[in-house]
């Protein structure tokens, strides 16, 4: 019924045309005649008619013109609609043609060139990976929509490695690298950083372990620590035992033993008191309960981070120096740029003094819950966005993503390389066989061989004269 009525109405609408029985040309002709446009047939007649038109005829013509104008208007509108649709069709086809013909090939060429660029630069990524002894597994998309708690649980591995090459020392140039574990208790994040400061005659090796915290005493003079570490009595068997103990302590499979090894005096005191001349047995290290300034800063950052994290629903990578310490929560956030300068100031204040990074031990015995962060000054190729123009998705938060592409946030997944336990000659900190290290041809001392940090292309470790530390004084 409705269709019929609609059809009838439509019919009625177009009835004038039908009843008019005039094709478009005729309509146009008629329209032109009414409007006054020149036409072939009635030019003279029109002029004659215009001269002789009586008022009644003019009024009649006007009366006839009114409905015709409506029709004509309708016709005009219909034609304009048709024309517009044609233009729309043309535009769409043009855009499709442009995209298919020119844009896609150019983008494909860009992709090829980008692949070539990556192939060329891949070496340096492997270089950084090897120096940090980690493997950058790729990018993991950070889900925006998950709530913070879910993010903490679901985000598996976000990890960032930092490297700091200290070339300021003329004599001892060893890379100082730190890695910071971010998440996942299942993932073992181990990184060893070595700060070799021969000017201070101290050499500290610190191990980052996710499950252990190692606290170093900044107040202790390095020389003492070094001397204490150095086996002055020259007992090779004890030194070997210590080295073996250290190696074992760094065994990745064994997570029940403390991994942090600090060769400062506290370790010496804890590990059987080398001074006492006893044969030391590797046992659980006891750490002094000191609140280091670093720890204070970390706690401050954590508080700030917690406050910001609660308000945010995004995930981001946590900066190395902020993260991981005790957090079983697997979240990671990148520090805000606001926080970065503060931390940078702190870190830079430490760097010239070559203070060791404070390490705080939460569990002397790893229970799988403690996390460990070794933070170096923000000298890290992996520390993101310090001073960089990274987009800040959330203004109030302290997190900056590693990569943000449109609506996706990407974090990098870093897994440390597991050192081979069978290789006893490996340096503990890098888990790298000695053969891979750029050590000098002259045989270094045990101390140097054990703690010389040499990535593939680091400067060779200078020979250390062990006789210096053979003095009986402690």
């Amino acid at each position: 019924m409705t269709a019929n009525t609609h059809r009838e109405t439509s019919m009625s609408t177009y009835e004038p045309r039908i009843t008019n029985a005039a094709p478009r040309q005729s309509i146009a002709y008629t329209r032109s005649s009414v409007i006054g446009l020149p036409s072939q047939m009635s030019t003279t007649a029109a002029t004659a008619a215009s001269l002789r038109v009586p008022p009644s005829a003019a009024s009649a013509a006007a009366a006839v013109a009114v409905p015709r104008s409506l029709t004509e208007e309708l016709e005009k509108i219909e034609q304009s609609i048709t024309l517009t649709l044609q233009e729309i069709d043309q535009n769409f086809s043009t855009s499709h043609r442009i995209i298919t013909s020119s844009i896609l090939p150019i983008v494909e060429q860009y992709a090829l060139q980008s692949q070539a660029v990556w192939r060329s630069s891949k070496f340096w990524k492997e270089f950084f990976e090897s120096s940090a002894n980690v493997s950058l597994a790729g990018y993991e998309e950070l889900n925006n929509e998950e709530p913070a708690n879910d993010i903490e649980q679901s985000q598996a591995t976000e990890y960032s490695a930092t490297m700091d090459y200290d070339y300021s020392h003329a004599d001892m140039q060893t890379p100082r690298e730190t890695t910071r574990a971010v998440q996942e208790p299942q993932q073992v994040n181990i990184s060893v950083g070595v700060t070799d400061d021969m000017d201070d005659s101290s050499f500290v090796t610190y191990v980052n372990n996710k499950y252990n915290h190692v606290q170093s005493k900044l107040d202790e003079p390095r020389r003492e620590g070094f001397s204490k570490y150095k086996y002055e009595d020259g007992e090779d068997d004890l030194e070997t035992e210590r080295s073996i103990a250290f190696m074992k302590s760094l065994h990745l499979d064994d997570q029940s033993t403390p991994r942090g090894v600090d060769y400062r005096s506290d370790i010496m005191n804890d590990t059987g008191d080398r001074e006492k001349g006893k044969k030391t047995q590797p046992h659980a290290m006891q750490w002094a309960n000191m609140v280091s300034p670093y720890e204070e800063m970390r706690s401050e950052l954590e508080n700030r981070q917690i406050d910001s994290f609660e308000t945010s629903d995004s995930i981001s990578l946590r900066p190395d120096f902020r993260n991981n310490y005790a957090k079983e929560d697997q979240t990671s956030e990148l520090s805000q740029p606001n926080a970065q300068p503060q931390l940078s100031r702190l870190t830079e204040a430490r760097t010239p003094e070559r203070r060791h990074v404070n390490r705080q031990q939460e569990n002397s015995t790893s229970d799988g819950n403690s996390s460990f962060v070794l933070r170096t000054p923000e000298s890290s190729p992996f520390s993101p966005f310090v001073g960089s123009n990274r987009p800040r998705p959330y203004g109030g938060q302290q997190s900056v993503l590693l990569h943000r592409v449109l609506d996706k946030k990407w974090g990098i997944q870093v897994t440390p390389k597991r050192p081979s336990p069978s290789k006893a000659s490996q340096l503990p900190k890098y888990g790298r066989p000695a053969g891979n290290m750029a050590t000098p041809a002259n045989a270094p001392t045990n101390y140097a061989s054990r703690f010389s940090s040499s990535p593939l292309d680091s400067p060779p470790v200078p020979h250390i004269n062990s006789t210096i530390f053979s003095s009986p004084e402690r």
Partner: protein
Amino acid sequence: MENPHEQVQNALLARIITNVEKLNEAIIVLNRVLQDVNRENMNVELLSQMWENYQRNVLFNLESTDSLEKPV
């Protein structure tokens, strides 16, 4: 009687729909290619960040000691 305008417009709309579908597929392909390119470029971006940090570290270390920087 069918409206002739309507017929023409319907035909035009059909063409438009066809063109839009093809355009949509082309844009999807373009988006995928760009996504791939961007994903592969993230590694390069990461590397650039590493070098940036390294340069900053070296600069800081040199400045903290006897810096050798004297621009030519």
